[in-house]
């Protein structure tokens, strides 16, 4: 599955370690939530970076105590129709100030990219190669956004205000 980060297809620097499999002694790893929560301190003490795959039916509040020691959080879309991870993403970015990698995994398709970017995702395990290749183009599809989110894009309401002010100032 191609990984898109920074708008480009990249090699995944995280090794996804299956449950029960041995952890490599160094290098970045991405582990499932059960394994992570079993011995979080031991995991976080290892040499390489650690990321966790967080399920969409568990409050992200439970993840907050570990955020400052984590390198990545991967949120899950079991199907693209299940949108719980959008809320989790916004909470992590906007309420808990998570600045590390926020990865979308599962059924990630082209038609969700804009929503995901707006919710704060910055890495995408994309299901189809053609969608991954279309990322940069798809991300530019919209120029107008009605809702304020943590991505900082100017909303339509505020763009209008700026327009009105500059009209009034005769600019």
């Amino acid at each position, binding site marked *: 599955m191609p990984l898109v980060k920074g708008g480009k297809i990249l090699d995944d620097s995280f090794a996804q370690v299956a449950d029960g499999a041995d952890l490599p002694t160094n290098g970045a790893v991405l582990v499932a939530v059960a394994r992570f929560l079993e011995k979080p301190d031991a995991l976080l003490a290892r040499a390489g970076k650690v990321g966790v795959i967080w399920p969409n039916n568990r409050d992200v509040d439970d993840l907050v105590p570990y955020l400052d020691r984590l390198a990545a959080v991967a949120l899950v879309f079991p199907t*693209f129709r299940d949108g719980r991870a959008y809320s989790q993403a916004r909470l992590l970015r906007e309420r808990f100030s998570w600045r590390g990698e926020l990865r979308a995994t599962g059924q990630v398709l082209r038609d969700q990219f804009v929503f995901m970017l707006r919710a704060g995702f910055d890495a995408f395990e994309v299901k189809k190669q053609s969608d991954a290749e279309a990322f940069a183009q798809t991300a530019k599809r919209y120029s107008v956004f009605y809702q304020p989110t943590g991505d900082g894009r100017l909303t339509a309401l505020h763009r209008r205000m700026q327009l009105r002010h500059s009209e009034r100032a005769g600019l």
Partner: protein
Amino acid sequence: MYAYDEIDRALVNERVSEFRDQVQRRLSGELSEDEFKMLRLQNGVYLQLHAYMFRVAIPYGTLSSKQLRRLAHVARKYDRGYGHFTTRQNIQFNWIKLADLPDALADLAEVGIHSMQTSGNNTRNVTSDQWAGVAPGEIEDPRIWAEILRQYTTLHPEFSFLPRKFKFAITASAHDRSAVKIHDLGLRLHKNAAGETGFEVLVGGGLGRTPFIAKTIKPFVHGRDLLSYVEAIMRVYNQYGRRDNIYKARIKILVHELGIGKFAKEVEEEWQHMRDGALKLDDEVVEDIRARFFYPRYEKLPHMPDELKEAAHDPLFERWHRNAVFTHKVQGYAIVTLSLKPVGGPPGDATADQMDAIADLADKYSFGEIRVGHEQNLALPHVKKADLPALWEALDKAGLATPNVNLVSDIIACPGLDYCSLANARSIPIAQELTRRFANLDTANLIGRLHINISGCINACGHHHVGHIGILGVEKNGEEVYQITIGGRADENAELGTLIGPGVRHVEVDDVVEDIVEAYLALRASPDELFIDTVKRLGVEPFRERVYATR
């Protein structure tokens, strides 16, 4: 009227181009039907029994004549020359081809209308009172807030894949014409003791398999906090609404399972985190939206112009006038309802020619504005009283002056088994038969206000639970059977109807309804007691007896 600016136009055009790409990818096989299904639904495209159905939003029920002409054009060019107005201020075209859809959307985008989120598990078209802005005694025009909500809910990055669909309705009058209590989220605009504008927020209403009347979650939310409070509700629902069972996924089930107290507490907690964030609406932003609503320059006119006095001698005019013309907030003007319920016709249908005729009449007599109500009728909101006789003649010619508004033949009905792939039974033929049975207008006037609502399946698109008489079609051993409820209502005193007894066969429905009506005429305390009030006073028993005594 709200006028789109370049920002609104850009978004709709971007959406059209995205959908064109999605259709292209589906036609080329790059998208599977499963993947495409959600994407087409988010653009109002259903696959029905015979063809694709295309549902276009008419936000808060306000249309310009130019927009209505464009809907007529779509009906003519891409469909079979007619459209169907729904109970949620949408219009549906029933015979459209997938390959034509992007062009139809592009044609609509040119006049600022679209089909975004008219289906799918996202926030749907925000509906409001069809008399908004012209009803006497209204707190303020609810469409300002409906437009703010329309923008806020359009392509929301967090709430486009909810557990299930999510419907907003908003009213600003004491008499609720928007059915806010049967919506996922209902808003009743009112003022607090300090004279500030805000909302009673109701949540968890809805019909379908498990009907609920909405409960008040907060009696007053200040206007500036509307969006943050709504976002808190949506976020709680998005995370905790059930996704294991499509029939239990609406917010009404979450509210029911948690209890309104616990649900309100969750929302309150969420809201406290964000109420002072970026969603806070400052006055300037609200005023900017308000400023882009167009209001007519009303003239100073007499209450009773000579033209009206003269026309009152014509009993046919007078009957229509008493039935379809309503008080406007400005003296000398009137609100005129256009019945889309001719005897023998499918409720809510209008031909392309009728749409064009209505657009012309709106230009001539109503400042180019048309309204759409959830009862599946249209309205011209600003008609000079002096113009009423001329308007009546023109409407009559176009088949739009049936004086049956709010009477027994003003039936709400879903498309039913004639079109819909979910339906178990036909709705339209039942409605047609009933309008023939009650075609006599003197009888209909004698009966007075009576709403019959018909759904062809448990999903309740015809709002049968809240009809004064509700008719639900089900399938039993391969036969269409109809269950009859009475005593439902969708207004500020919303209630669910009560089943009067076992289901009846298709051919019996009109006799049963007639029996119920006759029982009412015999039982009512006075000619002023409406059907719904008699049912309230006596309960269903006397009606049940009358209907089943001979069956």
